[in-house]
């Protein structure tokens, strides 16, 4: 019974997180990076003060992990074209120079720490691989030789 109650609390906390916070972040890639930033690198536990106050530390942690996994699955199911579009939008939202951003992401591969802990190795590898290709696509566009496909209209950034 306690288990069921715990599960229900986690679900309620996850719904709360989606409704109050994640719904305001339009792109799944942005949501993934945001959720990964709530995780302590040393312990792998997620922290969110507001959610922990409304529920509890443990429930908030589990709920954030659930949201993180869901967003990651969403991104893994996205086409490469969609991922390029999302990455392009994310780059613009950071206000960093595109060249610098691409160089930093290609060199440091910071996206490697953005995947949920329990992700299977093939899905994680597919995500990393798609991002490497997406970065290469943006790099070619930066040099101005290749334009984006006509359907690729830029999405507004969460900052906007």
């Amino acid at each position, binding site marked *: 019974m306690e288990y069921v109650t715990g599960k229900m609390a986690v679900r309620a906390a996850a719904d709360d997180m989606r409704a109050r916070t994640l719904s305001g972040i339009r792109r799944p890639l942005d949501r993934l990076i945001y959720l990964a930033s709530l995780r302590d690198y040393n312990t792998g536990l997620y922290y969110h003060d507001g959610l922990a106050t409304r529920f509890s530390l443990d429930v908030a942690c589990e709920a954030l992990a659930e949201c993180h996994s869901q967003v990651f699955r969403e991104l893994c199911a996205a086409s*490469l*074209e969609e991922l390029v579009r999302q990455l392009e939008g994310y780059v613009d939202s950071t206000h960093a120079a595109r060249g610098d951003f691409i160089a930093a992401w290609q060199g440091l591969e910071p996206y490697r720490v953005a995947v949920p802990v329990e992700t299977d*190795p*093939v899905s994680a590898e*597919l995500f990393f*691989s798609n991002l490497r290709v997406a970065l*290469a696509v943006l790099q070619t566009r930066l040099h101005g030789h290749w334009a984006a*496909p006509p359907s690729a209209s830029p999405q507004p950034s969460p900052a906007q």
Partner: protein
Amino acid sequence: MTSLIIFLVLGASLLLLLVFALSRRRSPAAGSSEAFLDARQALSALQNDLLAADLVRRLFAKDDLDYILQFTPESVQKLFIQERRKVTLVWVRQVRKGVMSLRAFHRGQARHYARLRLETEFKLAVSFAVLLLACRALEIALYFKGPYAAPQIVGRTVGVAGRLCAISEKSLGFLTPGSLGDLTRGAAGEQAKV
């Protein structure tokens, strides 16, 4: 005298064979729980991750290739093919590893509990052999021809692997404590669950 020597040699050989056979035999408990856990993990990885329709579709998605061919220069096209080849090779190797783990379970444990008929055991053995062969063929095709070279083999491999997972799931479900309880309560005449 000659017949005595032959008799002694035969006796010694049989004794040696017996000692060899006994040395290879493990106690039924030893390793059984380990094999059971391995098989459970392999089955879970195959069903929930590796053979998940979304993942397989995305790994071999033609729309990704079309997009790359249409909108990017040759250097990116090469990078894409290299990357996708690498990931699909990881995928097929993981599938193969999982299938081998399930085969080891069926070889060593399932028949002791599930009382498989000889015919069923033979069919299972053939299915495992075919699947492992298909995985190897797919691995070679992916390595030499790239990720989009053998869509039929991908489809068949996933199909056969899915069927074998379903069979293994029944075997593993049969070995849960509840099922074993049912068995001891009088399902003695029941045929193999597989």
